């Protein structure tokens, strides 16, 4: 699988996350105590932005009345309906046999590694009135320039 450079380590401190757009997919990169994990930012339930949800822990009980709260910071709750997923595996907890979110491998490297793809770039210039121009190939076309 091709590797994409998505951030530098200092951009995602422990317990934090960063949402990135990679090859048309929105993906959340999480730092759990120095280890990095990446999940698709789309919940298998109704397509909500999963990775914008709160991070919580794992609540379990061996017997009724007992409460064990563990793994704080490692369980992601969807920002819409609070479905819970394990950040390490993408595994859901409320119905693990049927629901799972796509998980991606994450590596920390010495530095940026050139990937197989290159985005198209265009020459940019600034005139004496501080207007930014971008040069595009082909004939001049009428159209709307819009801010994303």
């Amino acid at each position, binding site marked *: 699988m091709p590797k994409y450079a998505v951030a530098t380590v200092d951009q995602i401190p422990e317990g934090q996350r960063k949402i990135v757009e990679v090859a048309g997919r*929105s993906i959340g990169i999480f730092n759990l105590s120095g280890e990095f994990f990446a999940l698709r930012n789309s919940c298998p*339930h109704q397509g909500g*932005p999963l990775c914008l949800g*709160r991070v919580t822990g794992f609540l379990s009980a061996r017997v009724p009345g007992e409460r064990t709260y563990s793994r704080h910071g490692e369980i992601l709750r969807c*920002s819409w309906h609070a479905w819970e997923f394990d950040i390490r595996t993408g595994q859901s907890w409320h119905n693990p046999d049927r629901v799972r979110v796509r998980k991606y491998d994450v590596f920390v490297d010495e530095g940026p590694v050139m990937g197989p793809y290159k985005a198209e770039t265009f020459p940019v210039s600034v005139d004496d009135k501080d207007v930014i121009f971008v040069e595009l190939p082909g004939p001049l076309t009428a159209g709307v320039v819009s801010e994303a």
Partner: protein
Amino acid sequence: MVKPFSAVSNSPTRDVNTDLTIVDSDIHSYMDEDCLRRFLSPYWRNHYDNFGRLGYTGSLMPRAMPKAARHDAWPPGGAFPGSKLAFMQNQLLDEWNIRYGILLPLTGAGDQINLEFGLAMARAVNDWQIEDWTSKEPRLRGSIMVPYEDGSLSAEEIHRVGNHPGMVQVLLITRTREPLGSRRYWPIYEAALEYDLPIAIHFGSTGGHAMTGAGWPSFYIEDHAGMAQSFQSQITSMVSQGLFELFPELKIVIVEGGVSWIVPLMWRMDKVYQQLSHELPRVKEMPSAYIRRHFWLSTQPIEEPLEPHQFTEMLNQLDMTDRLLFATDYPHWDFDSPDRAIPRAVSSRDRKRIMGENALELYGLTA
């Protein structure tokens, strides 16, 4: 309060079906303290500053999520979910190409125990909806808030704004002091009919009593899973009081109760009506006939049976696909997504009716 994670860009993109007209019949605009103060008259602003609100206890907050909101619905800068028009336009109306949205502000005006302050609050909320929302966004329509525990004060407010083109229904809350068939509420129905306005009943409040017939539950999940109980009590009351013989044009919209529970309610009411109709001289028809003729149901929070085919079986038993209104409940956490909530097994004809056509007809909106 837990601080929300505020990165709100980079949401996944939606599959927007442009052939489908979508009407969202339940959007919550949030009125913050500053807004309320701005729209109260000087007298009532002074009252509010000195004495605040007096309502019933028993409402739980937060509800699973801060402000019961989708965690991605907090506008940048810390404003409350639902309080910023531009953010909502972008995150909801534009994202799914929603043709119309119906606002239902849940400000608690109706359950103020001081009824005259309740009227002042209702007026403030109605003026705020018109000035800050519906007149600034042609896709939005508002709901007339009333101090519903007093019929004549409520009628006064309906007469004040009932003709405004931005207001499309009167809003009641499901947990009232008495069941909504009671005489005390009749002036509300009478006034609403003068302007051909449906009555929406939204889940919420406490009305001073527990939602269940068995006392106060311990957990929020009991409140959420049990929401049908309060709606069932209201429908049973309205039908049994013969409300639809007294007001044959009355239209009732049940909002945020789901839909499946209506089926066994109709079976049960029809059965006992055949045995006990002599108790109800005003009631002339089978209860299910009144329900199918006078009620509309918003879909959210939609049923999601683990066996998906049971959903379409339920729709067949319900036989009210011409009365179902799609709703998101934005910005609340139990939001139903326009592109994912209605199961795939539902026919495209039924889907068109549920997603928009029924609401266009009910509210007299043009596609």
